[in-house]
């Protein structure tokens, strides 16, 4: 995915659930420069929260590991977010993307990928068992005419 970017942030954190709020908040702050509506911002925060939670719950179920996030502004007001881990990987990505499919038990709903897909314009998932998972999401923020 070659695309020219005009701005980006990179950050990395330990797969502790306490960091979920920080991760979605940081991406939302970065996204603010695209002047999103509250609804667009909510969608972005939700999608990031789902991707990060997946990494915490599924990539590193019995251990703590690194989670890396890169957010970029691309041409045409597009926000791209990459959430990457070096954990267990997903044996069958197609299956994992099915609504309600979960290996997380009663505490999870199995809707993470479905929400990422519905709330973002594009979702790419690359996963290698034993190596990790990289989730790339894109959302175009509709340009708004602001205060003249």
């Amino acid at each position, binding site marked *: 995915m070659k695309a020219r970017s005009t701005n980006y942030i990179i950050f990395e954190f330990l797969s502790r*659930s*306490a960091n*979920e*709020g920080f991760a*979605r908040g940081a991406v939302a702050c970065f996204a603010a420069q695209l002047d999103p509506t*509250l*609804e667009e911002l*909510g*969608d972005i*925060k*939700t999608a990031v*929260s*789902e991707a990060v*939670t997946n990494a*915490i*719950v599924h990539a590193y179920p019995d251990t703590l590991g690194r989670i890396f996030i890169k957010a970029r502004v691309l041409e045409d007001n597009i926000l791209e977010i990459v959430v990457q881990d070096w954990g267990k990987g997903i044996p069958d990505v197609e299956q994992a993307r099915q*609504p309600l499919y979960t290996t997380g038990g*009663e*505490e*999870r*709903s199995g*809707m*993470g990928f*479905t*929400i990422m897909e*519905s*709330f973002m314009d594009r979702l790419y998932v690359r996963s290698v068992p034993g190596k990790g998972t990289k989730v790339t999401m894109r959302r175009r923020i509709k340009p708004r005419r602001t205060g003249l």
Partner: protein
Amino acid sequence: MEMTYRSEDRYLTIQLSGELDHHAAKNLMDSIDRLLEQTLPVKTFLDLGELSFMDSSGIAVVLRAKRRMEALSGNLVVINIPRQAARVLETAGLGRYVDLL
């Protein structure tokens, strides 16, 4: 994430405020379980009005509370759903299983 409640004549209202994510969900589920066991409500209102954020962890919380209420032969109604949380619940098609007001 904070939970407050009031119980009257076995009608229970649980109010959630703050951010409901995976980090908050585990403790919240345990708290709701305990509360339902203590108060044995015939009807529970889960008030999401003060939630500033909710992801799919909230779906699991709602479904679990619904199952617990069914086990008590009662029912669960989710009320005052903010727009962002509503989008999450709608995407999951939760309206087919739970009363959303």
